[in-house]
């Protein structure tokens, strides 16, 4: 069965790479070239699409806007999820399982109708068109996910660690911040990747809660499409560039990505 798995992996990687290759060739061709003819290897590769993105403030500001709410969201998610994951991993309490399930259910709200109340809610508290609004809205699904991942890791840390710290006369705050959090560095790295990923790719909430000053990259992509009559080349170049920040995050957490989950409830 192992050899079967190996072949599956090889074929799956090819399956994975082909559309990515196509994205890259599109990014290197002009729009008329893409729609005009079929070619497997671009005959006139050009960097014009990338040049358009780095020189046009609408594009690079949008990158900045996206990064600002994604980073904010990741920070908030990890800060609130750390204590929650700790108590889930160490104690049983009234309604703990129900609470865990309720947290998961927040991923399930179908977006189309929920967008309007979201818009009303964030407008009424004056957060509309700020990165904080999108960051808070994205907490709806990044916080539960963070709690789950961190809880998995923390359950793998023996509770003797807690007791030893107490015996050594350390306060709870000292234990939590100086001993427990450093032990779970890997867990925090993995959580960071998942928060980053889900917040970065989300489109509907980000579009609803941002106005002209905080337009994120995903929204600029859809709007450019409708305005200039589908410039596939620039869109593909932007698409290729949106993967870059994520790759950097994965690169830093790649070792923990594997080791991390393995410690926990799995």
């Amino acid at each position, binding site marked *: 069965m192992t050899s079967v798995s190996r072949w599956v992996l090889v074929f799956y990687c090819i399956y994975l790479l082909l559309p990515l290759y196509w994205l890259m060739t599109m990014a290197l061709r002009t729009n008329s070239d893409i729609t005009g003819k079929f070619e497997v290897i671009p005959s006139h590769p050009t960097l014009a699409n990338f040049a358009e993105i780095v020189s046009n403030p609408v594009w690079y500001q949008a990158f900045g806007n996206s990064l600002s709410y994604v980073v904010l969201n990741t920070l908030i998610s990890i800060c609130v999820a750390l204590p929650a994951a700790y108590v889930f991993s*160490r104690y*049983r309490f009234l309604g703990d399982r129900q609470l865990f*399930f309720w947290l998961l259910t927040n991923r399930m709200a*179908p977006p189309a109708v929920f967008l309007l109340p979201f818009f009303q809610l964030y407008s009424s508290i004056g957060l509309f068109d700020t990165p904080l609004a999108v960051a808070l809205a994205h907490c709806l699904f990044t916080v539960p996910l963070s709690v789950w991942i961190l809880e998995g890791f923390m359950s793998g840390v023996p509770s003797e660690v807690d007791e030893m710290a107490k015996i050594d006369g350390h306060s709870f705050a000292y234990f939590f911040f100086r001993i427990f959090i450093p032990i779970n560095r890997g867990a925090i790295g993995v959580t960071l990747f998942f928060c980053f*990923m889900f917040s970065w790719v989300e489109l509907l909430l980000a579009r609803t809660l941002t106005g002209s000053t905080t337009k994120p990259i995903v929204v600029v992509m859809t709007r450019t499409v409708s305005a200039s009559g589908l410039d596939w080349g620039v869109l593909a170049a932007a698409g290729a560039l949106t993967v870059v920040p994520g790759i950097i995050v994965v690169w830093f957490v790649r070792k923990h990505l594997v080791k991390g989950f393995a410690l926990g409830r799995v």
Partner: protein
Amino acid sequence: MAINKPYNNRAWLGVLPVLLIVAFSAVIPLMTVVNYSVQDILDFNSRFYVGLDWYRETLQDPRFIEAFGRQVLFSLSVLAIEIPLGILVARGLPKSGAWTSVLLILLAVPLLIPWNVVGTIWQIYARSDIGLLGVGLNELGLAFNYTSNPTHAWLTLIAMDVWHWTSLVALLSFAGLTSVPPAYYQAAELDGASKWQVFRYVEMPRLGGVLVIAVLLRLMDSFMIYTEPFVLTGGGPGNATTFLSQYLATMAVGQFDLGPAAAFSVIYFLFILLFCWIFYNSVMTDETVEDAVENTANNNEARHHD
């Protein structure tokens, strides 16, 4: 692992920040939608209470039932492909070394592409005149055209979802597999266990926990799929690929039928909730996982005595 966790209700203090931040974004919008769903909203100043009329109407609406059927078929199809495929891919990954890092990063790439771009890539990639996949299939003698043939549109959507999300299952499964102690494999080998038995009794129990989350995430997300089919097929040809979210968006945004759309959303939400609750409760009992582990251990022990 802490199996006998102490019971302490002060633990609620630790959960409080999470509770507040999630409730802020979850409860108020949900209540607003429930409120819409019992009213007839002509504009924001004239609205009438209509009770459960919209619910009755939605449940009898043949277009809702069709879209619901398509949705269930789609979700089950992608789950049936992505879960086994993800496990196989994870098993095929080398456990350590330079290739592991490269492959993990490659697997992560589709997850990091914004959803509308995923739709755009596949829209071009599958086109029969200028896309690699479409032209390739036609070269092979298949008259492939996803814009006019409903079956082809379906297959393209499923192929796209498999491309987009199998990585998530694979990454989670891989993490589960790395937690199997090497000694288990050695024991199984000594006992002359077949490859299938190794998978079933050594690896499967360790995969249980992560697979629950993988299935739940994929179930919820595939049930709400919107952006990708919107970009790829726009629900067509005809209504062949109009899923629940798509139909809902036409109602809420296109026609501004806020009341019926809200009733629709609530029903939709309750359905996903029901599916997930059944699944969660049937699998997520701690006993199941522990029993499985214990059984494996016992089996191994029994075989050693033989």
